[in-house]
Every structure is written in C-alpha cells, then in structure tokens.
C-alpha cells in the first residue's frame, strides 16, 4: 500500500508528535507526518509519495539524522535529478555540506542535473577538490565547443567499433574465407547504417563470429539470425 493511501485510509496512522502543515498550505489541512525511515528513503516510490504529501522541505528536515549511511546519502543525491536541485543545494549550505565526506554523493548529482546557480559554481571554485575546478572550466566553455568535443569523441568511438568488427572477423573467420571476401567485407563495413553498426557492436563481442555470420553479414542470404543460449552460446546465421 502506498504511503499516501495509508495516510488517507488511516492505516498505519501513528499519533506522532510530528504534526505540521502539509505542503498544501492553501487548504490549511493538518496531517500527521510519517516519521521518515530508511525503508521510505530507499524506495523511490515512497520518497516521491512522501514529498508529494509533506513537501521537500519536510523531507530534507527529517533526513538529517540518516546521513551517516552512504546508500541513503546516494538516494538524497537523486533528489537533484527529480527537480529539487535548488532545495538540495540550500539544504547542503544550511548544514555546511560542501567540502565534506559526501562531496561526490551529493555534489556530483547536482552537477549531473545541470544545476549551475552562481553560489553553487562559486562553492565549487572555492572547493579543494580539483575535479570540481575542471567541471567549472568545462561548464564555462561555449555550448558549440562542448558539442564539438562530444562529436569528435563519438565519431572516434564509431571508427573504433568498425575497427573492432574488422578485427573480430579477421580473428574468427576461416583465413581463406576471410581473404576471399576481404574487399566485400570492407565495402560492407563502410556502408553499414548507423543502427546496424551499433547493433553489430553489441552482438559480435559475445558471438563466435563464424562462416555463417560472415554469410549473413555480407548479405549472402536475406536474413541474419543469431541464436544465443545462456550457458552454452551458439550461433545460427542465415
């Protein structure tokens, strides 16, 4: 049963002293606040339910007692990506939680969420952690330059995938057969669609590349079928 449902139906109601205004202050409804527990924090569905019911501030107020546990701190970091980056950052500042042992578990999710408020960037610059300085430098590059870097690395990755495919074909095919079809193989690799290349890059690393694979790869038949059986891999290419 979801937490909100439990609260609505009264099941699991506990007359706790944590009586507080709900997130919906317009309605002026008072609801008992479920004491936060590890069970709730570690379950994303219950966390969302809790925040929807009581508000992010209540959640953060209550979570302070759980911060000695890395998996829990990791879950707190996820808040950055759920649209609560600003609240999380304010909470961290309130509790002096920058430049301390949870740096990566809390700061990285904030970085990865694209959060870039001035105070956050300044804190990163002031941090002793040089990784954060690198991040700030990166963030200050123009968008087009970051895209150009990404594109260059992505395209290199594509060429590497083609090289690997050549390597596996050469390594696993019958040498005479490979020599016979070498030029056709090269043409086929050059003409692979983007999706085909990504597809093959996932397949060939775990398949034994064989003559039947080669026949299929070179479109000697209409259809390529791979059969992969756990605990005893085998292939069948048509």
């Amino acid at each position, binding site marked *: 049963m979801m937490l909100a449902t439990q609260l609505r139906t009264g099941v699991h109601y506990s007359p706790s002293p944590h009586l507080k205004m709900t997130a919906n202050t317009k309605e002026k409804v008072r609801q008992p606040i479920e004491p936060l527990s590890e069970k709730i924090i570690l*379950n*994303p*569905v219950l966390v*969302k339910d809790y925040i929807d019911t009581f508000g992010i501030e209540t959640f953060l107020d209550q979570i302070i007692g759980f911060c000695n546990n890395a998996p829990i701190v990791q879950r707190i970091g*996820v808040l950055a*990506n*759920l*649209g609560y980056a600003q609240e999380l950052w304010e909470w961290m500042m309130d509790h002096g939680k920058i430049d301390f042992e949870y740096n990566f578990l809390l700061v990285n999710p904030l*970085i*990865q*969420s*694209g959060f870039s408020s001035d105070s956050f960037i300044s804190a990163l610059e002031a941090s002793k952690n040089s990784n954060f300085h690198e*991040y700030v430098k*990166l*963030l200050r*590059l123009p968008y087009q330059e*970051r*895209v150009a*870097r*990404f*594109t260059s*690395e*992505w*395209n290199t*990755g594509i060429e590497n995938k083609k090289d690997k495919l050549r390597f596996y074909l050469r390594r696993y095919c019958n040498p005479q057969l490979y020599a016979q079809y070498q030029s056709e193989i090269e043409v086929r690799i050059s003409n692979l*669609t*983007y*999706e*085909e290349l*990504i*597809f093959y890059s*996932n*397949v060939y690393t775990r398949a034994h590349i064989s003559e039947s694979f080669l026949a*299929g790869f070179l*479109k000697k038949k*209409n*259809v*390529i*079928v*791979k*059969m*992969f*059986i*756990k*605990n*005893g891999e085998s292939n*069948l290419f*048509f």
Partner: protein
Amino acid sequence: MVNQTFFFKIDNIDPAKPVTLIHVLPNKSAAVWLKIVEQGIPAAPISQEGHRLNQSPNKLKHFLIGDKVITSRFCGVAMADVMTLLEKNGLFDLYATINRQKESIVKALKKANINHGHLHLGNFVVEFIKKDYYHQWMQENGNINHIPFTREKSTSNPVEYLAQPDSYEAVVRVIDFDLAKEV
C-alpha cells in the same frame, strides 16, 4: 539449464526500415513486456511480426528454446555509452533529461509491481524523435510505445540531437525483458 534465447534479425531489404530484433522468451516474461508496453511505460516497441511467427511455425522453430516469439526494433543506443560522453563534455542538459526519464521508468516499474530482473544502464536506450511528430503523437495517442518509426522523424545518433536540441525530444526506453516478472 537453458532458460534464455534471443533471436536477432536484420531486415536488409528496405534501408528505410529499422533493424528488427526477434526475441524468444518465456511466456511470463513476454506477458510482462506486453503489459509494460500497453501501460505506456517507455519500452522496446513490440511489432506485429512476432504474432505471425508465433502462429506459423517455420523451419527455425525447432532451434528456438522459449515459449513466445516477440519482434521489436532497434530503438536507440545504450544509455551508458551516451551518458559517459555527455558527462565528460559537460553536456548536462541532455544528461539530466535522460537520467530523469530513466528514474521515472524505474519508478513506474516499481509502481506496476514489475521486477525487470537486470535493470542496469545497458538496458536503457535512448533515441531522439522530432519534437512536432512526438508531441502530435502523444497528444492524439498518448502511448510512446506505439509511435510509428520513420527514419526521417527519428535518430539514434546523439550528435544529431546536440546539433539541434530544440528540434528533438529525447526518449529513453527500457529493453531486454527475458528475466522480467510480476512481483
């Protein structure tokens, strides 16, 4: 014990068609996949071809170990590959967008009482669909899993997205349901 079989097929007749994948999996897992697709939790789309293969056993059938044949299409690059490079190059807008979608899928699966079985980043893929096409479809149909594939309207290449981020919608999907079950 042999408990998992995949079939992959490449349709190489029409280059406009996507790479088609054939999966053979236990009935229970196939049912979960179908449920996920019908509930609109973004997942590898199921194509009709699978029904044909189930109804008319062909000469390949005796090689298959599994109960049900389901066909789908190649629907994006592994999220792990994309995210590593996005993070390295400070492109956090797209990073956060796809990460958020992944989180929503994880939550939706939990809410639907579905245990995927191996929900790692390699089993999330991302593709990019033209914004107008995406929004029109979602407004009229509401289920991303049934959006018709056209090469002009979608791409798996993040470079194309990054060149025109305002023209595309990033769509994260969960794939690989051979271990999926209801809990």
